[in-house]
């Protein structure tokens, strides 16, 4: 038997993650200063970890309800109302997932029929396209441009809609660009969508990390609540990546369908993480504020230094990445990142890891201390001087 032949063609056809490829190269080199990670440098706040530990001590090591602990779902709904003025029923419209990633997979799986099209603004997080394909759908990429601040433009959206379009993925605040969509931007998008049968999957995992402007969910725009699935989680806002915990909020029938798949595929999200997350929802605001304020300072440092090097650098207003253009160097994104790694031992991620329209850019995370960032920036500066 040829085992290779036994693997589904659908899976084989999806290329391996560009991030993975670059990880393999970077991992070979010693003493690398990395700007490559997509997770906070902070530890989970101690009071949150302590609640997780306490739940273990109390022997709370059993399954929870499929949709998640009711108390956690209630706290999530209180939080969403308090922070983003969105109301959901903890019983009918809330599902606790294994990270935000599971939410992406579930939402696509319960909505897509073969041939259904999913609109994906790029550059974006790496999962949307593969998960669409695994779910039997067809990804349709909408490029976003630096001159539009990497926002999804309504006329572009209009242009890519076909009779087969079923889903729009709205990944803002955006990884890797740091772009956000403001209320008036979302209203224009809603204007296009209102007359059509299109569901929005709004990935708001970075909602707490915006700088100077409050995050607005498209579910808050008139006529959108009933057709929007909001995905979020604890990883970025509370520095809880390893706990693997997220949630999905949306129309009752969709959440019920997602809960059905989740129940058979996953059973429930990790119970320890859920107890810790209750504490995060109840008493985590100060931690989020502290981390947001630290990221904000680093963000300014990054933009300032990249611009001083003579690179065009869009000012990100969300997440924890800057996405400077390296076109002036004449190198491709991959060429730049590989040369930077070999020459200066700094790891940044090629923009193309986030889709072909990331060409000409690199993603630099600022989830590092000021000292580390300064050192990395100095090395990048040396490198740039060689090329420009």
């Amino acid at each position, binding site marked *: 038997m040829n085992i290779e032949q036994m693997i589904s063609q659908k899976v084989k056809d999806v290329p391996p993650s560009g991030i993975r490829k670059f*990880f393999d190269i*970077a991992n070979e080199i010693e003493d690398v200063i990395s700007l*490559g*990670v997509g*997770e906070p440098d902070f530890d989970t706040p101690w009071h949150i970890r302590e609640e997780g530990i306490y739940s273990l001590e109390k022997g709370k090591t059993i399954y929870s309800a499929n949709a998640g602990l009711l108390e956690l779902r209630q706290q999530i709904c209180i939080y969403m109302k308090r922070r983003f003025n969105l109301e959901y029923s903890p019983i009918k419209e809330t599902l606790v997932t294994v990270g935000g990633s599971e939410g992406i997979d579930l939402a696509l799986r319960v909505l897509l029929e073969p041939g259904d099209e999913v609109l994906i603004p790029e550059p974006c997080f790496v999962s949307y396209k593969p998960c669409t394909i695994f779910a039997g759908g067809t990804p349709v990429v909408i490029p976003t441009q630096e001159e539009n601040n990497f926002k999804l433009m309504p006329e572009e959206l209009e242009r890519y809609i076909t009779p087969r379009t079923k889903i729009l993925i709205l990944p803002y605040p955006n990884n890797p660009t740091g772009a956000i969509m403001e209320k008036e931007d979302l209203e224009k998008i809603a204007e296009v969508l209102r007359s059509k049968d299109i569901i929005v999957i709004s990935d708001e995992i970075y909602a707490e990390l915006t700088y100077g402007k409050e995050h607005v969910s498209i579910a808050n725009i008139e006529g959108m609540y009933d057709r929007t699935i909001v995905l979020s989680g604890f990883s970025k806002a509370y520095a809880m990546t390893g706990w693997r915990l997220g949630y999905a909020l949306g129309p009752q029938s969709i959440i019920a369908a997602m809960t059905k798949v989740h129940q058979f595929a996953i059973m429930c999200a990790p119970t320890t993480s859920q107890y810790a997350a209750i504490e995060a929802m109840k008493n985590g605001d100060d931690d989020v504020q502290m981390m947001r304020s630290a990221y904000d*300072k680093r963000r300014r440092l990054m933009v*300032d*230094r990249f611009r001083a090097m003579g690179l065009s650098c869009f000012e990100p207003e969300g997440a924890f990445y800057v996405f400077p253009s390296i076109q002036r160097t004449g190198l491709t994104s991959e060429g730049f990142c590989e040369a930077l790694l070999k020459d200066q031992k700094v*790891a940044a991620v090629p923009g193309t890891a986030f889709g072909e329209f990331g060409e000409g850019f690199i993603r630099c995370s600022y989830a590092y201390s*000021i000292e580390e960032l300064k050192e990395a920036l100095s090395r990048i500066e040396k490198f740039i001087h060689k090329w420009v």
Partner: protein
Amino acid sequence: MKNEILELLQENSKYTASDIATMLGLDIEAVQNAIIEMEKDQVICGYSTLINWDKTDKKDIVTALIEVKVTPQRGEGFDRVAERIYKFNEVKAVYLMSGGFDFTVIIEGRTMKEVALFVGQKLAPLESVLSTATHFVLKKYKDYGVVFEENKKDERMIVSP
């Protein structure tokens, strides 16, 4: 603006005015002026370095926390007594406390004996001092928000989505 500058300087007094201006999105001259003004006004009282002496070969430093009960003086309250205490070079910090005693006095000396002698010969005999209780510090785990022994390695993957 001043509070934000102070928070950054408290975090790391080596930040230059230019660093601070960049991080806060302010004009460098405005930051420089604000710092000079705050130094003049004694809002910024000095710049020091946080050192874990246990990691050096300088072993002769003993820190003690002393609880002091005093009689406040007529018309002067506690301030006059505090002044008589904090003027000694050995005294590194003096705090007025609520609760069971009046002052916390932090003293540094070369040996336990030296500290004990200071308490016995200088501090306790002061007219307003009713009693003292000396507690020696055996190990500092965390000071000024910094954990001393921690040697944290970044265990995150070098690259992740």
